[in-house]
């Protein structure tokens, strides 16, 4: 360089050559700074972060994470909502005197022990829970202490304003607001991800009536459990589902297992004579059995080594209406065999959906216990509801289908707007539906279910008193029963199915010691219908309908085979229905 006279000149040229490149470089840098600046402005002006954003900041996160969706009844009444609650935490290293702070806090917060707090405030720890979910008064007391090192955490807490009213439907959520039972668990994702309230099919007014009425019977008859269902017979919407004993979902951790059990959808029971509705429908649909047919019920029926008798034995030949109305096992078994026996039963139960768990928006869904070998004795007992166990909801849904348009009804806990659109499986013909309605009316008018009779509405129904299986492997202990009644109203044009089951009721003076479904469960259904009918806007049955039902009934003299006296015999007229 030095001593080269041209060196300076050449370098200067190179400098000048570099100038264009420097200018280009400056432009590139300007562009880079500009784009970073635009990104910064873009991120902030955009309310939501460009890519995902979860921050450690509690308040910001609480504000950003949408609250769990509310749950409402079909009319918009709140069933489950969220409230903000504050929890108290501490950074022990910032507490001037952890032991003194522990004493001060324990004196102001219910359920907090000073000794326990002192243990948690062990020096060196940076975080400790003091108390979860403070009351506003406690929050104020803590603020007034003015201690450094304490912090509030905002969190959401699930609140069930109706308390026990719909505990088994709603279920509950855990500490982190995750669904742990009921619809809260079954619809957990929906409730987390969509902020709109979840509208259920429940009608909380109906639920209140049903629970109150059932609770009274549950206590009066000292049942160990009870279930009541009100099902919209056309849409399958559950207006009410009550299982007793129940619990308060706001304090679910105190609920005992028996209280958490949903007896309407989780438990499977042998429903006994209720099943005769199904056997009758199957027999009538088969074409082999008509309302005029008579079967010999003069003595118990023998199948192999087994003997099947009647509770209310008439000891004579009975017409089909008499078999149904007086709930004759002997007659029903013969109807089932006349209709084809095991093969027909299996196919029919399959079509009714009685052989698999129900699809319902709950987690407790009982799996039916279905016989493995359909020998004659099994076929006989299934016809009157023993040897097969289903959930009460299975049965209510089946009755809904058989008493409305003869197609299967899928129960749901979500409000449906309009009738279900999906094609529905045909169960029976409309003629069978009409005959079955008449038979069910007859049970309430003249048979075992007269305790369900009401002045306002024509009710159809069926009683059931099933022996509970014994404690041992086989047989029945002959002590405990499941007493039940299924009601359909108004029977001339069914709108609702009401099912009540009482687990192991005891008769009292009012029932003359009887614990039959007709004495214990039927009056519950009657009270429910009487109260929810007007609530749901169901017009009272008109006298014309009553006349039409009566017109079909012919009362004939019949000789009681056991006492030899004359009594009322029932036969269907079948006059141009």
């Amino acid at each position: 360089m030095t001593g080269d006279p041209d060196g300076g000149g050449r370098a200067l040229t190179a400098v000048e050559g570099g100038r264009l490149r420097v200018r280009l470089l400056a432009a590139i840098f300007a562009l880079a700074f500009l784009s970073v600046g635009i990104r910064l402005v873009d991120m902030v002006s955009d309310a939501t972060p460009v890519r995902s954003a979860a921050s450690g900041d509690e308040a910001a996160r609480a504000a950003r994470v949408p609250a769990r969706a509310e749950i409402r009844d079909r009319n918009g009444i709140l069933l489950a909502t969220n409230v903000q609650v504050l929890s108290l935490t501490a950074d022990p290293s910032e507490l001037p005197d952890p032991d003194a702070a522990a004493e001060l806090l324990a004196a102001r917060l219910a359920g907090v022990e000073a000794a326990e707090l002192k243990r948690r405030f062990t020096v060196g720890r940076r975080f400790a829970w003091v108390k979860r979910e403070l009351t506003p008064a406690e929050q104020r007391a803590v603020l007034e202490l003015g201690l450094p090192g304490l912090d509030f955490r905002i969190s959401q807490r699930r609140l069930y304003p109706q308390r026990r009213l719909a505990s088994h439907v709603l279920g509950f959520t855990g500490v982190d607001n995750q669904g742990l039972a009921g619809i809260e668990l079954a619809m957990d994702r929906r409730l987390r991800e969509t902020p709109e309230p979840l509208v259920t099919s429940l009608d909380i007014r109906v639920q209140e009536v049903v629970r109150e009425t059932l609770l009274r019977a549950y206590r009066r008859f000292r049942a160990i459990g009870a279930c009541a269902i009100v099902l919209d017979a056309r849409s399958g919407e559950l207006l009410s589902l009550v299982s007793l004993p129940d619990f308060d979902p706001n304090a679910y951790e105190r609920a005992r297992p028996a209280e958490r059990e949903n007896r309407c959808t989780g438990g499977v029971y042998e429903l006994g004579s209720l099943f005769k509705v199904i056997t009758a429908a199957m027999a009538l649909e088969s074409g082999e059995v008509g309302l005029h047919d008579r079967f010999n019920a003069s003595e118990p029926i023998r199948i192999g080594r087994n003997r099947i008798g009647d509770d209310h034995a008439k000891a004579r030949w009975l017409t089909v209406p008499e078999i149904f109305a007086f709930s004759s096992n002997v007659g029903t078994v013969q109807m089932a065999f006349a209709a084809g026996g095991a093969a027909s039963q299996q196919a029919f139960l399959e079509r009714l959906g009685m052989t698999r768990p129900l699809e319902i928006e709950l987690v407790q869904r009982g799996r039916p216990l279905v016989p493995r070998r359909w020998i004659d004795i099994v076929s006989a007992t299934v016809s009157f509801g023993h040897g097969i166990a289903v959930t009460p909801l299975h049965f209510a849904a089946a009755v809904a289908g058989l008493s409305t348009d003869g197609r299967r009804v899928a129960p749901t806990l979500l409000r449906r707007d309009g009738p279900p659109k999906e094609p529905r499986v045909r169960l029976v013909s409309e003629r069978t539906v009409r005959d079955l309605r008449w038979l069910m009316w007859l049970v309430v008018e003249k048979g075992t279910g007269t305790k369900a009779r009401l002045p306002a509405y024509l009710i159809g129904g069926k009683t059931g008193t099933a022996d509970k299986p014994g404690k041992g492997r086989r047989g029945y202990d002959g002590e405990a029963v499941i007493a039940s009644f299924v009601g359909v109203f108004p029977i001339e044009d069914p709108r609702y199915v009401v099912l009540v089951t009482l687990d192991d009721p005891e008769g009292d003076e009012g029932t003359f010691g009887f614990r039959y479904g007709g004495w214990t469960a039927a009056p519950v259904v009657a009270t429910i219908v009487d109260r929810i009918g007007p609530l749901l806007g169901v017009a009272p049955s008109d006298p014309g309908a009553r006349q039409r039902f009566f017109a079909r009934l012919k009362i004939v003299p019949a000789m009681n085979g056991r006492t030899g006296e004359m009594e009322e015999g029932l036969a269907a007229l079948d006059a141009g229905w």
Partner: protein
Amino acid sequence: MSPFARTNRGLLANWWWTLDRALLGGLLVIALVGVVMVFASSPPIAKRLGYEETRFVVKHLTFLLPAILLLLGTSLLAPRGVLRAAFLLLAGFGLLLALTPFLGTEIKGARRWVSVAGLILQPSEFVKPALVVVSAWLLARRPGMAGAPQAAALTGLMLLLLVIQPDLGMSVLVLAVFGVQLFVAGLPWLLIGGLAGLGVLGLYAAYVAFPHVQTRIDDFLDPTKESYQVETSLSAVTSGGLFGRGPGEGVVKFYLPEAHSDFVFATLAEEFGAIAALLVLMLFGFIVLRGLWRAYEAQDRFVQLAAVGLLAQFGLQALVNIAVNLNLLPTKGMTLPFVSYGGSSLLALAIGMGMLLALTRVGARLEGAP
């Protein structure tokens, strides 16, 4: 209002009148922002590491004062003095750099730090500015691109040492800065294309060869796999809004271990808002563009190339750091010059920027100078 009369021909007076005072002012303001940020962001981190809350603040301030003196002192040098200083630094710290794999302290999986006279130093920080100046001299002393092979050989040697550390972020930065110098030195466009291709290839090789590079890039490209740091950083920036949560009110520093260093920009945006963050960004942009303008006007090839190199180093480091904070680039351990907390690295930065100030003085030239 000026400390010196224009007619004063003394060393300091000459310095004052020839210095780019806007550049110096910008640097001092950035250093001031750094002081504010170390106060704002470091106490929770110091506390979490079990130190006194003021530990990093005190350390930052104790290094900042010597750093400013070093900055001013270096800026007094004439270009030849800058070159000499660069040679000394390169020789001394280059040697240390070569020795760190053997006597270095391992921190977070890399041996980049050595203990010198009780100070924990990262030799690569000091090698960086020195290398740029020496490369500029090698490029400038021959006409055209004749000096390029020697400069490339020197840079390659330093790169090798850096890769051994391993310090890939720094290697990429050094490579990019050398590329910028070659570009300004007049590298033909065809070769520029070829080198750019090589650079991409090199990045790919790093991706394949180093697992930690691979995971970082994979995490960046996979939108579902947000790294905790980036996620927290992003939400910090967004939650700050235009005006910020207020000084000291940020929360990101409680969650991010690097809130005072690599992610200081997010802390800044969170506590002081996007407008303040934008102003800081503009300040960096101003320094780079102002410096480039002075390089554009330079009358000496060495001065031009050295200034451009130093500026590219400073600007790229700032851009990369901010871009990482805003999730425009995959995470890379690069600090924001003067704003991030830094002990000894402040000294290296001050030397680099002091050299820049010296080279951008009016009439600065290597050739023909005494």
